[in-house]
């Protein structure tokens, strides 16, 4: 039985080593119950690369909390082909899975990257791929390999090659940034001297809708990540906020105050065809589409306190979904549509909670801080949210079973308003 503290410490050290260059640093708290022991052998030839691919793969897998790393060093020769694998060695080390492979330089600055995932007890190959990529694409390739391993061994799609967005506030300056899911490669997509809130990824990952206050009032924009072209989606009298994309990417739900209190409207992504969806004298805000596009969940204080409701996307009666406590806000559907995350106030704390829609059963995923703005990773296994440490905004993530937590911190400034992007379909 391995010492759990030592294992975790080892993981932590691995992470620190792997993330020393990240703009967002990641720190893991807790661990999964049944971690899969995996040995990741160095890829033959990878020591000549600017960064070892296997370091990135290991960091990805360990960060998920579902894997534990089995030592793959100290061998006279590192296997890179199945016939070179001495299975008894890996069985003795306790590995259930073994990754091997190679990197070879091609002409024109390209690389040939090969990997194989082997089932140690069965002595079988589980999956194998090869990639021909440029030096700049090696990091993405490592994430894709980690995704393939994660999917093969857990049955869920991996999200290591997805991206996240969030807002960084440094003094009076606000930056909407996009980074890889491991915090690397952060790039500003909008810089402003006025607040930016509520970023929301389009379903194809090509655009982000957000609220900017740069004209001294909240206005909803959509910005393309490839061209930076920006369009105004909603700029009516009063406040315009809380954009949420329909699953087909054609429409958005937005919150407007042009007709009185904050109400939910549907609008085409080009700003045309505005239709009012809610008709209450209360606050109706924070809309979010169900993955099948049939429902909208939202926050409303129509019953006296802010609670979460669900209504058909074409309007109609709203059904109240939360009943415990006097402050339940910020609902977001799980990718399978069966549950949603939200923020529940308990005393002075604001916790991330998960509710099963059919049973109405609620599980607290966090219980100690001031948490905000939860959103699911596209595989439904991780919830990303904003939190606070010593008065400073940070990002954090918790597995949807509540067992594993991560913290993302930046060196300077407050981080808030995170949103996890869709699974990348560009390759």
């Amino acid at each position: 039985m391995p010492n759990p503290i030592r294992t975790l410490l080892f993981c932590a050290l691995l992470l620190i080593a792997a993330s020393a260059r990240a703009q967002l640093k990641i720190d893991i708290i807790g661990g999964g119950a049944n971690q899969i022991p995996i040995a990741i052998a160095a890829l033959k030839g990878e020591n000549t690369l600017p960064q070892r691919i296997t370091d990135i793969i290991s960091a990805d897998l360990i960060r998920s909390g579902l894997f534990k790393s089995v030592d793959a060093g100290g061998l006279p020769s590192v296997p890179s082909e199945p016939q070179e694998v001495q299975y008894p060695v890996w069985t003795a080390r306790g590995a259930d899975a073994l990754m091997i492979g190679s990197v070879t330089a091609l002409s024109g600055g390209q690389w040939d990257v090969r990997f194989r995932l082997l089932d140690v007890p069965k002595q079988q190959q589980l999956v194998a791929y090869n990639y021909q990529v440029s030096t700049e694409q090696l990091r993405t390739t490592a994430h894709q390999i980690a995704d393939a391993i994660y999917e093969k061994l857990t049955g869920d799609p991996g999200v290591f090659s997805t991206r996240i967005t969030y807002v960084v506030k440094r003094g009076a300056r606000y930056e909407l940034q996009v980074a890889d899911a491991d915090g690397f490669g952060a790039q500003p997509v909008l810089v402003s001297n006025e607040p930016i809130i509520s970023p929301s990824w389009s379903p194809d990952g090509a655009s982000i809708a957000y609220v900017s206050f740069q004209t001294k009032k909240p206005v909803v924009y959509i910005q393309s990540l490839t061209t930076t072209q920006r369009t105004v989606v909603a700029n009516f009298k009063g406040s315009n906020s809380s954009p949420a994309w329909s699953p087909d990417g054609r429409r958005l739900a937005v919150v407007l105050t042009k007709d009185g209190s904050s109400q939910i409207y549907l609008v085409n992504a080009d700003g045309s065809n505005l239709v009012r969806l809610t008709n209450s004298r209360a606050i109706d805000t924070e809309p979010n589409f169900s993955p099948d596009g049939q429902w909208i969940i939202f926050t409303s204080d129509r019953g006296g306190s802010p609670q979460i409701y669900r209504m058909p996307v074409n309007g109609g009666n709203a059904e109240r979904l939360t009943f415990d406590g006097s402050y339940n806000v910020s609902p977001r559907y799980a990718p399978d549509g069966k549950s949603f995350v939200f923020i529940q106030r308990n005393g002075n704390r604001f916790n991330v909670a998960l509710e099963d829609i059919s049973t109405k059963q609620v599980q607290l995923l966090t219980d100690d801080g001031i948490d905000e703005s939860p959103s699911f990773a596209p595989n439904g296994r991780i919830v990303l949210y904003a939190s606070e440490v010593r008065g400073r905004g940070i990002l954090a993530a918790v597995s949807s079973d509540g067992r594993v937590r991560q913290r993302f911190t930046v060196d300077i400034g407050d981080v808030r308003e995170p949103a996890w992007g869709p699974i990348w379909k560009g390759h």
Partner: protein
Amino acid sequence: MNKLILSVILAGLLAACASTPEQSPAKVEDRTPAAPITAEPAKSEPAPKVTAIERKPVVATPTPAAAANPLKDPGNILSKRSIFFEYDSDAVKDEYKPLITAHATYLKQNSSAKATIQGNTDERGSREYNLALGQRRADAVKQMMTLLGAPEAQLEAVSFGEEKPRATGKDDTSYAENRRDDIVYQGE
């Protein structure tokens, strides 16, 4: 207990790591977003339909006694612009009625003047829900001014929610300072 110790150890390790100099991370060509938009209010901003700020100053009707702008005159109630609220409330307290009446009258008498009422909240809770609560506070004052005769076309109620706190402390005094409407005239 183990978790606690671990957190401390991790925190220490991370702190030790914090001095690591940053290098620019590896770029992935096909996923690098294009250059950021710099959103300076004065620069390349698509013209909004409702403009909260214009460059031309509001010219107050000059009075024979003082040509000074009554909105800026510290002795004039019109220079007072803030209305404060209780926690979780949009009820306008009686003490602010003279101030609100004065602004309503000013707008009625100066048809070229336009005012924005900006609602604010303290930082606790959801940003979007707070935006809606700030809007409710702004609407409460706007409605009162309209009832007092201020033309609706000269008024806009918007919300900053918790996004632009005047006080940045995390205490009741700061929170109270931030539960506030501000009346801002076009051109200010």
